[in-house]
């Protein structure tokens, strides 16, 4: 019987074997009723209920938050009822003119794109060296690149902002870009190093033996192989930079505020802040912008790869 049910997966084979043991007097007892191998109980276990309850609660909050902001930004008066009395897009128009959103969005995109380009140009060659080479003080260099990610942004952000102000760069676009490069370059290095390690060095060696210079190797061998990794790292840096609050906030001024920072300033401005619906409208603009980036991103990368390279687990359970 077990032999007939052993299917391709190891898991099922294991279950089948256990099934046989269970009948054997020496075999371990199992609390579950005897079922055919690979067959699942229809009643969900308490663990499953817990898991689904957790997920549902999380999404209730998540969508509650997103929908509240959306409805709020479209509603005229909304205080004590389920839904606003009228719907309008007036808040968007008002937010657009009052905060000069065009300027803010342009600033945000300029900062983000510059940071992405610079951190990839600087980070990828460094990641290559760290992935391929051994040299004295390598560990020290690794620590140097890990620290900006581990230390809270405010800790190095405040001294960094002080330095920026001393150099007369305070509240400028340059300062915002420079400050955002601090965590971004190490981030590119750390995500790209394992990626480069995966590439077979024999390919580069072959190119080198055929007389290619390092520049040619980079342009014609590595770059095409690295495109998926560079895209993933670039998009992550883009998302991080657009969403980066702490560091940008410390050095930016009225002309160099990114979208998140302007929303925060609007929420906390003196005199109780701007009217809530205006802020919600800005929030929706921000979310829409992020969603566009996210949708583009997901065409290229798998979300679980954001944090580590994953090999697809075997088809079990």
């Amino acid at each position: 019987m077990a032999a007939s049910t052993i299917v391709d997966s190891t898991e099922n084979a294991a279950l089948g074997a256990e099934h046989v043991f269970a009948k054997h007097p020496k075999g371990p007892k199992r609390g579950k009723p005897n079922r055919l191998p690979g067959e699942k109980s229809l009643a969900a276990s308490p663990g499953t209920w817990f898991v689904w309850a957790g997920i549902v609660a999380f999404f209730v909050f998540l969508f509650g938050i997103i929908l509240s902001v959306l409805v709020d930004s479209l509603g005229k008066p909304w205080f004590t009822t389920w839904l606003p009395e009228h719907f309008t897009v007036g808040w968007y128009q008002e937010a657009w003119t009052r905060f000069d959103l065009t300027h803010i969005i342009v600033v945000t995109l300029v900062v983000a794109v510059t940071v992405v380009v610079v951190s990839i140009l600087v980070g990828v060659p460094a990641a290559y060296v760290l992935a391929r080479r051994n040299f004295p003080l390598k560990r020290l260099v690794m620590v140097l690149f890990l620290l900006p990610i581990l230390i809270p942004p405010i800790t190095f952000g405040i001294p960094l902002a002080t330095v920026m102000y001393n150099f007369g760069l305070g509240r400028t676009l340059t300062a915002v870009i420079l400050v955002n490069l601090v965590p971004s370059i190490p981030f590119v290095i750390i995500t790209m190093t394992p990626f480069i390690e995966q590439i077979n060095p024999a390919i580069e060696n072959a190119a080198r033996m055929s007389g290619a210079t390092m520049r040619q190797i980079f342009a014609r061998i590595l770059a095409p192989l690295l495109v998926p990794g560079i895209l993933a790292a670039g998009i992550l840096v883009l998302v991080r930079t657009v969403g980066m609050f702490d560091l940008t906030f410390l050095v930016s001024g009225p002309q160099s505020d990114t979208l998140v920072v302007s929303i925060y300033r609007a929420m906390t401005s003196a005199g109780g802040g701007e009217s809530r619906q205006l802020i919600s409208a800005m929030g929706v603009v921000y979310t829409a912008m992020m969603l566009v980036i996210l949708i583009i991103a997901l065409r290229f990368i798998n979300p679980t790869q954001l944090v580590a390279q994953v090999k697809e687990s075997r088809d079990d359970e």
Partner: protein
Amino acid sequence: MSTGANTLPRRRSSASLRHRLAERGIDSQLWMLVPAVIFALALFIYPFIYGVGLTVQPLPGMQKQWGGGIFANYIAFFKDPFVFDSVWITMRLAIPAALINVLVSIPIAFKLRGKFRGKRFLSTLLVLPITLGTVLTAQGLLIFAGRQGWLNRILMDTGIIHEPLQLVNNYVGVMFSLVISGFPFAYLLISSYLSGIDPSLEAAARTLGANWRQRFARVTLPLLAPGLATTFILTFVLAFSVFPSARLVGDPGDATRVMALMAYRAFGEQQNYSMASTIAVMMGVAELVIIAVVLLGRSFLYKGSTGGKG
């Protein structure tokens, strides 16, 4: 990037120094590392050292108030309860938030590790809060969980509660915001660690007759533990430097007066750069203490090639 010399290795005998250096791993390829190192030194190490230097140059007013000469800022940090309590306030928020995120993620990552329809969709949804960011989460929580918000409305209409719950502008609000932004991150990390553990190990344990509890406690958990420690550290770092949410959905005057907020106050509102740097540096120290404790615990855990990236 200027590595032309590398393609003509060791051609002339006069290059003996270069040769000897190359044998020790130093050659022109290392130039590719230089821009990144310069950025790190100029934008991270230099400001950091400068900041540490600032901490021992207190303003005259601080010296007069707290004494202690050049260490007046540190004395103020430890003696002024308004400042020093922020350490505990931060810990009371960040440690439970990181623990909740990790502990809740474990069963969920376990249940969802197989293949099923809509897995990619679910993972996509989980990435959403990362893009929302703390400021937006705060604004949404204020509306959704506020006194007039949908959450209280549903609970009141179904008769579960009679008075609206106070869920924002206090500790709970900040905790919500930390879990919403930290949980997806913890889940994605843990599920990627989990997928790095070879399923045949568990299958083998199953063949040998281990039930799920034994399989979890004696096979999977020990392999996963280093990854859990790493996840805890990363979510802790995220939660530790909360500042927009502590200001916006919290009670910034009292219950959620976190260190980042105090540092920013000294920096932006009081223009006391040296005190701001002191709080910032102490914040780094406090965080590193927790990380060091976790890493120390982690060093007792299993290390080896399991495929689990611990």
